[in-house]
């Protein structure tokens, strides 16, 4: 390697130096062409999954939650597993759009819009699960501190209420962040479209944006502010989700490592999901020059790093279980690795820690098929991580006489399937209704698009 490389010059974010108008064309194209049969097939599959989930939910609400596998003592089962899983998926989006923005990582521009949208969809999906889990979702209004006829308030010292606040704030702020980002692009679409209906819709939602630099001036400020708020917010959300467990006194849950461990895990699985979906999207819509292989490689590196953090946490939990000398704690961890649910534990370890090590090899990091498969495995692994945490601890609690083995029922599986259906349906609809890449951000980083100041 030659020693006179100038590290202050960043590699180009967008390949092939497209003209500004070509960027408009490329990104607006999916919105203006008729859907291909591939798109319709994808939409069909995902909405079928959604329908299955909806039917299973309908049954659970009508006949009651006895249709699920939940038993005594495993009262928190698949709904909570799914909740934590989906909130985690959302975290990658904010990390990409806010944290990488603060760190001035320009490679994020191609994927930030998409990642943010995925955040919103994942949090919507996640938010359904605590409601589903209560069994009577129509009483969910009582989760908010609203004056009611019982003159009762929520318990603000409970992590479950913190969760309500964290997740709803997260959803709102992500939405605002996303929408603010969309305004200039919507204005661009408005100026471009010939159809009257589209024009009206874009006009309404772009609020009359007119590309003024007097506005950009404030706009850049608010983007910075929102990124600044979203960053601690995203960390707080999974921290608070982990408090649901960590603030309890059950062995296996009551640990201080949970908040950072959960956040790392969330970013890990979220990146895997974003990577998977982006691979499909760039292929279908020919956006390979904007969502570049370099970007995907960088995402794989993030996955490698966070995967190792998660692996470290697994090891550390075992160490502390032994080092603390707490017999209950050591029992729980031995039980995880060698007990009834050992199968789930080893799925988790192999998917999350072992397979991701393949990303050390540049060849694999840059091979679309390989990274896609590893991404899927990571998500499987991360789902099982939550399963292991929730179910193993509960099924073997303090009192051996009340131990029981938890098995999900078909309805449980149907609801899980439905959650994927909901998420992917939203993603697929999004792809054709809004620009999946931020046009204004990409333009701003294309070579030659900025004035040179002397």
């Amino acid at each position, binding site marked *: 390697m030659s020693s006179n490389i100038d590290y202050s010059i960043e590699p180009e974010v967008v390949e092939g130096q497209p003209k500004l108008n070509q960027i*408009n064309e490329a990104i607006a194209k999916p919105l203006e062409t008729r859907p291909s049969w591939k798109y319709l097939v994808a939409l069909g599959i995902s909405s079928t999954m959604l329908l299955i989930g909806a039917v299973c939910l309908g049954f659970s609400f*009508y006949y009651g939650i006895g249709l699920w596998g939940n038993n005594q003592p495993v009262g928190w089962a698949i709904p909570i597993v799914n909740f934590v899983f989906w909130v985690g998926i959302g975290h990658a989006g904010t990390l990409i759009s806010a944290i990488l923005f603060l760190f001035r990582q320009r490679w994020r521009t191609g994927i930030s819009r998409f990642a943010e949208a995925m955040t919103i969809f994942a949090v919507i999906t996640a938010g359904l699960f605590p409601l589903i889990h209560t069994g009577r979702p129509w009483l969910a209004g009582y989760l908010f501190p609203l004056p009611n006829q019982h003159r009762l308030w929520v318990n603000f010292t409970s992590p479950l209420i913190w969760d309500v606040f964290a997740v709803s704030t997260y959803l709102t702020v992500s939405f605002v962040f996303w929408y603010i980002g969309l305004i200039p692009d919507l204005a661009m679409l408005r100026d471009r479209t010939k159809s009257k209906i589209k024009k009206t819709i874009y006009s309404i939602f772009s609020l009359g944006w*007119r590309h003024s630099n007097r*506005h950009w001036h404030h706009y850049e400020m608010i983007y910075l502010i929102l990124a600044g*708020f979203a960053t601690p917010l995203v960390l707080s959300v999974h921290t608070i989700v982990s408090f649901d467990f960590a603030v309890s006194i059950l062995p296996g849950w009551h640990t201080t490592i949970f908040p950072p461990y959960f956040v790392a895990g969330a970013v890990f699985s979220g990146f895997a999901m974003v990577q998977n979906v982006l691979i499909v999207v760039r292929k279908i819509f020919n956006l390979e020059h904007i969502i570049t292989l370099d970007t995907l490689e960088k995402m794989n590196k993030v996955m490698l790093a966070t995967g190792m953090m998660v692996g470290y946490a697994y090891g550390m939990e075992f160490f502390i279980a032994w080092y603390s000398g707490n017999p209950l704690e050591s029992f729980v961890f031995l039980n995880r690795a060698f007990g009834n649910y050992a199968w789930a534990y080893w799925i988790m370890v192999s998917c999350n820690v072992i397979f991701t090590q393949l990303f050390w090899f540049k060849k694999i990091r840059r091979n679309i098929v390989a990274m896609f498969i590893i991404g899927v495995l990571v998500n499987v692994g991360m789902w099982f991580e939550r399963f292991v945490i929730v179910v193993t601890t509960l099924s073997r609690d303090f009192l051996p006489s009340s131990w029981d083995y938890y098995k999900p029922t078909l309805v449980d599986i149907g609801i899980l399937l439905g959650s994927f259906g909901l998420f992917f349906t939203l993603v697929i609809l999004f792809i054709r209704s809004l620009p999946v890449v931020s046009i204004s951000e990409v333009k701003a980083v294309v070579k030659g698009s900025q004035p040179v100041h002397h």
Partner: protein
Amino acid sequence: MDNQMNTSENLYGVGALFKDPNKIVKVVEKLVELGYKHWDVHSSYPLHGIPKRMRLKWSPLGYVALILGLTGTLTGLFLTWWTMSVDYPLTIGGKPWFSFPAFVPVLFELTVLLASVGTAIVMLFIIFKFPNNQHPLHDTEYINKVSVDHFGVFIEAKDELFELEKVKSLFNDFGADEIIEIAYDRNEVTFKPKVFDVKFISFLVVIAIITSSVAYLFNNKILYLPPFDFMLKQFRLGPQESSTFFADGFGMRKPPAGTVARNQEFYPFKNKPDEAGMKLVNPLLATQENLELGRNKFNTFCSPCHGWRGEGDSRLNGQFPNPPSLHSEKVRNWTDGRIYHVIMEGQNVMPSYASQLTEKERWAVILYIRSLQRALNAKQEDIQ
């Protein structure tokens, strides 16, 4: 653009389009130097360093966010403190009512929520005065080109230094690719945002109707349909209901012989109706509240046999001997204490209702019977 009135008094301003962002920098510097006030640079993405060269004031949004964020924190603090330690104090886990560390997550979330949503609202609706789709720049060739790959500089006609020819030649000097005059079009001139617009008002009315009918349906109908009615269906027996559990089929149970339930006093006039009639006095006054209670209990416990108005028109369809009317001379002349005795002891086939009613309720029922009697056999003075 055909409805534009291209006369000079309707001129909104002149814009120049450039393909090269570097030219913009020079124009901006020149305009600042000449002292123009009402002008702007348009580009479809933020141009680095242009706001600074335009001498724009530092954006106040940071302070806005700070103030709104602190408001969020304080709101959260007040909410948690007031609900948890003033309005409904509950001791949880032996912690003080005001356990600040446990409130921190909520305070934090509210801070972030208010700061980000509020700042966005302030920027869009107060600083930018959005939504504004009536701006003269919309739907012009100028903005359509800016939004693709041109950069525009625009000077408004209302600027004091504005002179059409001068501005045009200035732009030409800097090598503008295109110079466009933009006039107000008719509806932009006549457009005035109105709050009391017919359309807007009817929109509000429609929204109001929809919301209230949904709320009505939900609260009064839907919540009483299965599965939402689970609270209404409970495994307990109401008064007068039969039971398959007990051999005699009665849902209402008598206390075992020789026992007195808690809060039930010993009855000293057992088998002494006349003495009860003389010695017992109704302690209640005929207030609205007591009569309400009496009516309620009478309807529940007495009316199945005695009829809604005590006329002896039983609803039991002959399954039980019809009781006499409570409006007979006899009962009207009885003292309250004598009726009380019937409730306590029953009379012939009528069972005792002592265990179903508390003392106060018995007297209230009697007050109600009195008012029924009075209503059906009103005295002369009542009519007046």
